């Protein structure tokens, strides 16, 4: 394990039955780096992301986040997860709580903050995502874009070192996408280490330090946004970009 990396993955394999979804992925992410993962559906990028906080258990290979070996069953995963924020495609807000309670639940339960501190932090993050006035409503009353911004605030409230985004805008109406991407862009500017699975090529181009093209369970190609979008080398990359950019 190399300490200079925030995330260090070596030869990661994952299968569902006979279907090998990840065929030996290695990837290192530096602190403050924003990595966007693109690729066709079923290429393994979401599964890879979910292996980073052990929502999926890797079959083999090693995954270090913040120096902790995620793949090791002896690692207290609950503790490591506190430092890894995750944002889901379908938001997964808790419908049995208000927006503010969604955000303060984990900090209070895990004794990271007192109730007062957590409330204050919740309002701070809600302000950051532009939803301070929604603190006391039930999340089911919000629009998709608002829900996703609350979900980001919820993840940030734990003060994570790394943020994982699993297709955060895929379930949104087109007019909502901009608000969410804007929040993510702000976050990137503040120096958050981010790994983003996305279909938003514009976002990847503009915000990513590095773009990774997944195809058929392997990383086919990676590089700066210019390298990937303007000068793709691999035929699979070219054909994928052709399809999504000229659709």
């Amino acid at each position: 394990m190399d300490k200079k990396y925030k995330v260090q993955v070596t030869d990661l394999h994952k299968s569902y039955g006979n279907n090998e979804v990840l065929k030996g992925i290695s990837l290192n992410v530096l602190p403050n780096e924003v990595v966007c993962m693109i690729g066709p559906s079923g290429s393994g990028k979401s599964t890879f992301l979910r292996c980073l906080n052990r929502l999926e258990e890797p079959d083999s290979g090693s995954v270090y986040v913040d120096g902790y070996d995620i793949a090791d069953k002896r690692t207290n995963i609950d503790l490591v997860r506190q430092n890894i924020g995750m944002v889901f495609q379908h938001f997964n807000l808790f419908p049995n709580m208000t927006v503010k309670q969604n955000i303060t639940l984990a900090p209070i339960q895990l004794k990271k903050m007192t109730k007062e501190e957590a409330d204050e932090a919740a309002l701070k993050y809600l302000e950051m995502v532009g939803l301070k006035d929604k603190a006391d409503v039930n999340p089911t009353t919000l629009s998709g874009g608002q829900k996703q911004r609350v979900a980001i605030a919820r993840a940030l409230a734990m003060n994570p070192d790394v943020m994982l985004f699993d297709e955060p805008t895929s379930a949104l109406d087109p007019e909502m996408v901009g608000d969410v991407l804007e929040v993510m862009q702000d976050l990137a500017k503040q120096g958050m280490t981010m790994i983003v699975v996305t279909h938003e090529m514009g976002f990847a181009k503009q915000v990513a330090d590095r773009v990774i093209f997944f195809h058929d369970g392997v990383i086919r190609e990676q590089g700066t946004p210019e390298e990937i979008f303007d000068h793709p080398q691999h035929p699979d990359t070219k054909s994928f970009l052709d399809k999504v950019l000229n659709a």
Partner: protein
Amino acid sequence: MKHWLKRGLTSLAVVAGVVLGVMVIGSESAHAEKTYTIGTVDTFEPFEIQDKNGTYNGKNPGIEIEMLREIAKHEGFKYNLKIMSFNATLTALEAGQIDANMGGMSVTDERKAKIDFTKSYYTDGVVMAVPEKSKITKLSQLKGKTVDVKSGTASAIYANSVKKKYGFKVKYFNTSNTMWNDVMNGNAAATFDDGPVLQYGIRNGIKLKIVTKEINSTPVAMGIKKGQNQELLNKLNDGITWLKETGRMQKIIDKYTKGDAAKSQTETDRSIWGLIKSNRDALLSGLGETLLLTVVGAALALLFGVILGVMGISNGKILSSISSVIIYIFRGMPMIVLAFFIYIGMPSVIGHKIPLFTAGILTLMLDEGAYVGATVKGGFQAVDRGQWEAARSLGLPYYRALVKVIMPQGIKIMVPSLVNQLIITLKDTSILSAIGVMELTQTGTVIIARNMEGFKMWLIIGGIYIIIITLLTWLSNYVQRKMA
């Protein structure tokens, strides 16, 4: 996963603890000095005659009860009466649930193998009775017909010994009254029953006629589990001898066969309202028992069910399999079988009697708990997987995520089913009448055995259930509206 296993086993241990606790608390009263538990039957005139509250505390409780009273006084011991079906007294005696049994019991060779009989105090014979308008007068006319008997009685033994010869079928009942009504209603051609009992019933309005002489006269005596309680046997024998020598025994028998107690103490007002009024105390106490069983049973079933449900959704294969098997077994077993198994079967295995109420509660807890378990499991599973992932990825440990995020959402999904289960639990308490729990249904059986008002009494009992269930439904609708 190891984590899981530990917690799961802890929860199992808690359930086991609760169950054992209930058993021990419930059984403490069974150890008092020189108090014997005597099993006997619902009204079996003239041997046993319940008063209008369903007890044997009245002035004319029947030959055997009055005899037992005098013997207990003379020999200096106390006794508790346990009222159940005659057949259940035999199994309870064998299981050690009771110290002695009585109920106009004939002394037979078959029974002698398992029972020490006291001296006999009466001679009893089997007679055949038919509906008043029936033309049957001889056993030979029974070919292809049905004869009703009470299971486990001398009449049943006799019926079985001759059924091939005369070509009739035998149908079994637990109480005389239900059986006589079956014959009166024409569902069977005849009944075999004890002569004096039938005579008493006919004198009190049963529309049957006796068409044979007493067959198979046998002595009647009390029973004690073979070789288990010489002390009680001696006391009873000594008492019976004393009663006979002093002429008291004959006096008691005359009182019920010839004297003023030969007519049962029946209500004067036989309207529905009159029946409710005269049986008010018995009905209220039966209803109270039903409600108590429902509340305690449902609460324990909920606890047991939640544990089963939580085990059921665990990632650990062992825990979820244990949960599935428990749910499968108790859902698959008829509740009445479970009740018999716990109350009558278990004591002979654990060597310790299980008090009636405890047995009833255990039955409800296991049976209803299995259904609750399936509901809870389903409710938790119905919560979107993403809720788990979001909670866990924030760093919440499994149980914290379960309690704070999954449970509140799951409970909302399961409330309608749980309310439904509560109503079913209330109705299911009636099944416990089979082991003699004096809840509302058993209260009805006892009252009817005395006043013969089957139609009106069951109408009253049914009405009470409907009223309670309606109230319960209103309450649950209110709660559900509040939760929504």
